[in-house]
């Protein structure tokens, strides 16, 4: 039972991290109808900025705040310089251009920081395990990811559902032409949304950095999961991204945790330990396939006219 609690926390933590990445992607895809493959690069840049600023300032919190600001600015600059010119284009053009950006960012990072990668050490107060219920110790840092991500999710909910900007974002997701026709500065809105998405990706990257290493191409594998999530959740829907991210995080982690033992009851031990990791990494794609068949618009689609 205690193991189940701990593994669920692992799943929740992974899911929330994926949510941060997917939220930006779904906003940009849903509202601007723009496919941004370079979203993973912003995730990587967030991690590199954090590693650099933490080393400069010698303060974990300050370094992370600076990195967050830097990723936001980078996102806005990227939108302004490059992506703005691609909005009217075909999705294929956008895919090609943003794929080019992935290559650009990977090589820029190689030039600036070198090929070996960086590490982002945690301050001592985040490296100790915390007792959450008697008998269950959980890494403080993973717990802090859960807290931060939940806070960001709540904040995002309030912004999107309760503010004027949020109303425009929602309106943009439903019908872009109409809000443009009503005299809303859609260019500014897009820049803002893209910056927000970039900052969320950066946040995901920098929070993941102490657990993993900061390295070139770190955003590419995880971006696939983010796309799976926005497909499952419904494109353009923050709520959908949230629910789907938690689903995916849970399925992935619990699958890895319990599937091998489950398989061992039917298969030989050796076959089970080989098949289990393969099968558990397939589970989320199976989920996506089922969702696409049953509800092609996703589980929680953004309201469309």
């Amino acid at each position: 039972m205690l193991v189940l609690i701990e593994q669920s926390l692992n799943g929740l933590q992974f899911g929330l991290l994926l949510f941060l990445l997917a939220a930006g992607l779904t906003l940009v895809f849903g509202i601007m109808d723009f496919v941004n493959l370079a979203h993973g690069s912003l995730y990587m840049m967030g991690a590199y900025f954090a590693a650099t600023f933490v080393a400069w300032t010698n303060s974990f919190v300050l370094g992370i705040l600076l990195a967050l600001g830097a990723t936001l600015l980078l996102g806005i600059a990227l939108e302004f310089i490059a992506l703005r010119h691609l909005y009217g284009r075909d999705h294929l053009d956008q895919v090609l251009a943003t794929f080019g950006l992935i290559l650009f960012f990977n090589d820029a990072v190689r030039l600036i920081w070198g090929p070996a990668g960086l590490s982002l050490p945690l301050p001592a107060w985040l490296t100790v395990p915390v007792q959450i219920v008697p008998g269950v110790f959980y890494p403080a840092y993973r717990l802090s990811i859960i807290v931060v991500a939940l806070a960001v999710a709540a904040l995002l909910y309030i912004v999107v559902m309760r503010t004027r900007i949020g109303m425009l974002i929602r309106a943009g997701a439903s019908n872009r032409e109409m809000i443009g026709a009503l005299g809303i500065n859609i260019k500014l809105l897009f820049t803002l949304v893209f910056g927000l998405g970039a900052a969320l990706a950066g946040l995901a990257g920098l929070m993941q950095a102490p657990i993993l290493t900061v390295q070139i191409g770190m955003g590419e594998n995880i971006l696939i999961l983010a796309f799976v999530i926005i497909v499952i959740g419904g494109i353009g829907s923050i709520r959908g991204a949230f629910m789907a991210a938690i689903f995916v995080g849970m399925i992935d982690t619990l699958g890895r945790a319990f599937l091998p033992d489950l398989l061992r009851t039917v298969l030989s031990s050796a076959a089970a330990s080989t098949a289990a990791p393969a099968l558990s990494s397939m589970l989320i794609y199976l989920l996506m396939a089922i969702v696409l068949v049953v509800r092609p618009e996703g589980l929680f689609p953004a309201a469309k006219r």
Partner: protein
Amino acid sequence: MKKAFWLASATILALAQPALAGDTIKIGFVSTFSGPTAVIGNDMRNSFELALDHLGRKMGGKPVEVIYEDDGQKPDVGKQKTEKLIQSDKVDFVVGYIWSNVLLASLKTAVDSKTFLITSNAGPSQLAGDLCSPYVFSTSWQNDQTPQAVGTYMNQKGVKSVFLIGPNYAAGKDMLAGVKSTFKGQVVGEEYTVWPSQLDFSAELTKAKNSKAESIFVFYPGAAGVQFLNQYAQAGLKGQIPLYTAFTIDELSLPLQKDNAIGVPGAQQWVNDLPFPENKKFVEDYRKKYTGLRPTFYGAQSYDAANLINSAVVAVKGDTSKKDEMKAEMEKANFKSVRGPFKYGNNHIPIQNFYLQDVVKDADGQLSLKTVATIVKDDQDRFHDKCPMKK
């Protein structure tokens, strides 16, 4: 007129033929030069280049040409690059191969074309056993050997139980099988993770912690080793469940692992401080030539590979068409390995010592690896009986 045209064409074609064997010694080098594990490939290339410098960039009196190809850590790409090197570049040797799955995919191409393949890292069990070939030599080890040495060391320490974690690919399975073959205590759990995409080991660490095992053994080469050690420390397991490793801590990962690596033992057939003159020369010149970098075991094995090839080429005086003679010469291992004692078994896998290594702060205040003890002497892999080649 027509005749003249044909004649001219034929002449041009004849001139355009690739240089015939005899002008240069051509070596193809397949390793990973892009992506997160490119640092390993770079270290292998650096060491191979250093060996060529030491040989005067000549073998048997002929200039050496090396063509480096990137496998991107993917078996299909590695196979394509091997085919390209053998079929269109017509190399005399293919060298390199970090990853066991890449090597296994590329093996048939080399063996079928009777091109010598020198693996300077990967050592899948199949290669030592029924897939062994007269044209394949290793300057590294068979995958199981290093973890076997770790298992032996754990017995010496009196460890009663272990939880095993490793990546789900050819080498990962060999590594865990290797520990199991020598470790006398109880194996309470065994987990494989998706390779190379899975980098978060929270589920596995939670299971290890709850298994009440006395120790954990892992095999995570490259950046995954950094990530594993990070997460192991963050989960508060350091000091609670001791960690034993194979190929997880090296000179490339240490600068990122930092203090997390202190006190985590591992086994290796080569350590930078081994007291042999060839090794001192290798380590010192490497650090001189590549400022700020330190050689790893991957590099040491590649350095040895260049010297092994040289011994064969010298024996035939540069005539690389004499394959049987080159094979016979390489079987003698007639070169000075930087790791010290080195000879070949019937399956062309080295018979060698394995050392216990520990992480210490060196004279420059930098973390480095240090030889602590010899765990096993003249160790031969456990698959050599399955190899049809006999001595």
